[in-house]
């Protein structure tokens, strides 16, 4: 089992490293960091611009392969990801933002997985009943809704609710209320209130996808002989379904989870932007609009590491559930 997981981990690690390096090369070819200075009035001299770009290590006159090598050497020897165009280090920018993104991602993914699996199992057990049909059409509708539309619709609903109640029950702009007075608890409550809508938005999207997949996996299992065997040896229906059914149906889910995590990341980035959170998604988009190669690579590295972790976790679950890979 350790061997299996180690093999998968190395596979993911190599993929993540290559993805990050390709992102650096792609960004270096496409983005032109000099354009930011060329538009200034008075225009800085070419020497000044070259000096600035050399300092950042993003001068287009240096061959890409040389810059990539310098970036790798810098990462290995100093543990540094370079500087942003605002002369802060990419690492400090990332530590300031990562917490925001992780809070949303971890909560959203866990809720999505639990709700999705529960709804999927429920739908499979009650196949073709009205509740199953309602769940199916609801998840198709959510899957057909872009992340930003879902976010804004939730905001409209929250505004209507606030208007009806006459108080600001749900707040949704930004990550916290600026200049809030009060103690530690007031701040925690405030952040939780701001977290509510983005988390719902992300969890709904994830749960819709997971529930479809879990339902079909569960339907496969329900027809299997070992469920009948479990029933005939005296297990109750619920116990047979949970101990023998859900457990087996979760095995393909773990693979699906690893594969869908990149989609979740993109959805989270969109959700952050819609709710104007200053997270990694915003950093990535800003880096592209401002032609900031180092910051872009940092943001991609963050995503790659998350995919690495999610993939490995999914494989651990896979190995724990499926005895065949443990031999």
């Amino acid at each position, binding site marked *: 089992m350790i061997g299996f997981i180690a093999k998968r981990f190395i596979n993911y690690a190599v993929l993540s490293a290559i*993805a990050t390096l390709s992102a650096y090369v792609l960004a270096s070819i*496409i983005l032109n960091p000099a354009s930011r200075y060329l538009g200034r009035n008075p225009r800085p001299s070419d020497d000044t611009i070259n000096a600035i770009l050399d300092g950042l290590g993003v001068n287009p006159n240096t061959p890409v392969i040389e810059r990539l090598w310098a970036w790798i050497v810098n990462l290995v020897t100093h543990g540094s990801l370079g500087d942003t165009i605002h002369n802060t280090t990419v690492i400090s920018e990332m530590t300031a933002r990562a917490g925001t993104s992780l809070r949303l991602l971890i909560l959203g993914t866990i809720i999505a997985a639990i709700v999705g699996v529960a709804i999927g199992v429920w739908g499979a057990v009650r196949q073709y009943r009205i509740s199953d049909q309602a769940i199916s059409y609801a998840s*198709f*509708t959510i899957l*057909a809704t872009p992340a*930003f*539309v879902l976010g*804004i619709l939730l905001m*409209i609903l929250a505004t209507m609710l606030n208007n009806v109640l006459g108080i600001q029950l749900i707040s949704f702009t930004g990550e916290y209320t600026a200049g809030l007075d009060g103690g530690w608890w007031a701040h925690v409550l405030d952040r939780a209130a701001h977290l509510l809508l983005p988390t719902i938005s992300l969890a709904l999207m994830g749960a819709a996808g997971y529930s479809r997949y879990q339902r079909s996996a569960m339907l496969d299992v329900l027809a299997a002989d070992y469920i009948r065997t479990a029933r005939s040896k005296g297990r109750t229906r619920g116990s047979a379904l949970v101990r023998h059914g859900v457990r087996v149906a979760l095995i393909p889910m773990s693979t699906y989870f690893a594969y869908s995590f990149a989609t979740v990341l993109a959805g989270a*980035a969109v959700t952050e932007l819609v709710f104007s959170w200053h997270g990694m998604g915003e950093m990535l988009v800003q880096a592209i609009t401002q032609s900031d190669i180092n910051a872009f690579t940092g943001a991609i590295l963050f995503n790659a590491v998350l995919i690495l972790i999610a993939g490995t976790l999914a494989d651990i679950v896979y190995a724990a559930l499926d005895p065949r890979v443990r031999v």
Partner: protein
Amino acid sequence: MSMLDEVPIGDIAAGSPETSHSKKPVSRLRLVVSRLRSTPRFWVGIIGLVAIILWAIFGLVPNAWNATDLDVYNMGSRPTGLHWFGTSDIGEDIYAQTIVGLRKSLIIGLLVGPLAAIIAGVVGAVAGYLGGWWDRAIVWVIDLLLVLPSLFLFILLSPIFKSLSWVALIFLLSGFGWMIMARVIRAQTRSLRERDFIKAARFMGVDTWTIIRRHVLPNVSSLLIIDATLGVGGAILSETTLSFFGFGIQAPDVSLGTLLTAGQGAAATRPWLFIFPAAILVFTVLSASLVGDALRDAVDPTSGVNRD
């Protein structure tokens, strides 16, 4: 990432139990059609899709306004008899704008879906049929693209595509929408390669490209048709998301995404600017994916995902 290879391969040659009762063998096409007919989801989807396409073509006829008209006497009005979906703050008719935007989004979706499916078919068949280093290299690229979320790549590449026309967006979207299906096609092709009819062709000296074109691709065509249908909805979603953040369709052109951007700020106070285009968008994508989903069930009733 080798787990995706384990995608169950539907046995194309296997007949279903329904066929054993009739004397004349039922053709595969008729079997699929009869399965489709009895799926309510297919009817909901196809009627919705046809309705939305007809509406996109003829919807402007009964309307008194064009998308570019400005009604200076009714700026920012609610939905009325004069302006069915209301007007924007400079007097644009939202109904007319929605139809023009829908046309663009539909064109993009209907072109990108099949185009991505064709790329998936060719790449997957080449990887699966040639095997060896070609296979490894292609699978490696596919895995890489699966790790890098394609939305981020779209945004990165958008500076190049912004300067070109919206047609370039079609190629961008189809260029990154084929990976998952290519892996499925590859797995399917690897099993086809060992079948007798392909072996016979190979031993008779038919060249590789002809075998792929004449024998491999027709045998995975049902998968490609499903992928093309499901891709329509996915492409429309990608296009609107990109346009929403200003990376897709640019100003003089209108798509559902740019309309939603314009309506976003007023979403809470003047919801008609946002709700109508959003509802049309969700309805379109939903119809396309219902059709694709029903098609998948009809072609391969044992397929894992979304089985009914």
